[in-house]
């Protein structure tokens, strides 16, 4: 389902504020994105910034996990090498 536009949200809010005042309040309160909203002559609404996908977040977590495993492996290997050297 697509997100409501600022105009649609304004109409739904049934506020007594003017559109400009309402928009400024919503942007100041972080409810609406604070990039400057424009009326385009061709009537097409501006695109919103792209959100990061969950898939990308998962893959970066996997990267961290691999890095952690390699680091622990290296530490264990280093410690065992040291204990071997001390035992000789």
């Amino acid at each position: 389902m697509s997100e409501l536009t600022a105009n649609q949200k304004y109409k739904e809010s049934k506020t007594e504020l003017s559109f400009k005042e309402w928009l400024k309040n919503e942007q100041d309160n972080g409810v609406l994105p604070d990039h400057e909203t424009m009326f385009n002559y061709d009537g097409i609404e501006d695109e919103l910034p792209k959100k990061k996908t969950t898939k990308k977040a998962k893959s970066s977590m996997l990267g961290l996990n691999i890095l952690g495993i390699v680091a622990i492996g290296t530490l264990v290997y280093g410690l065992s090498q040291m204990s071997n050297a001390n035992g000789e």
Partner: protein
Amino acid sequence: MIKKIRLDNEPTTLKVVVGTHREQKIWIKVADPTKPNTFYIKRFANVVGRKAFFINMPISPQVAKVIVYNAANGENRNDKSFKVLSIKTLPLQVKPLMSLSKKTISFVRFAEEFCQDAGFLPSSKEGATYKSNNGKFRIDYFDIIRSKGTNNIVGTPARISQLTGKIEVSAKAFRKYTIPMRMAILMHEFSHFYVNREPSDESEADINGLKIYFTRGYPKISAYNVFLNVFKRSPSMQNKDRYDKLDSFIREYKEKENE
């Protein structure tokens, strides 16, 4: 046929009479020969026999270059397929639709100055800024307009900030438009922020913009041309509805003019 006509920057209606033996698609263009990409009209009509073209010019250059040619033959000086029977300058007569407020007059003056020079004024990727003499109005002239959200190129020729009233214009679009087409767009943008009861209403901005545009005496054909030009690239039910509303508004205005 190319002819230079002295207009002395005065508001004028040019009457160009063309004759043909059989149906020919005849183009008429009026340019400022001293400025690149600066046309006061670009229009055509299918002419059979004799036809008078009336070109309203609320603003005009010192000297205008009138170019008339047959679409089938291009700008050929020895074209015998048509004849320019006469070119006359008449005083511009306008039936104003409204009395313009001080603020509107001030913006119109700024917009007309910008539109007469938009064919060659520098633009940039970040937007070259132009301000009215009173400092109240601002146009940022971009090479091309990009989405504020994604930075992708967007097709709109102009837009206005909902918060500040700052107008952004695409040089790529404006350089190919005539002066009246540029004016129709800027009057629409101005109306969104300064005239509309409902600022986000596109149709209200169209009609309010046209009221100012016709009150100044700009040609009806250029109003149609700019809307059709932009809407054909952005076909939507909203834009179809906008076109129907402005078409009936222009027809009503035409009827009032003929009363």
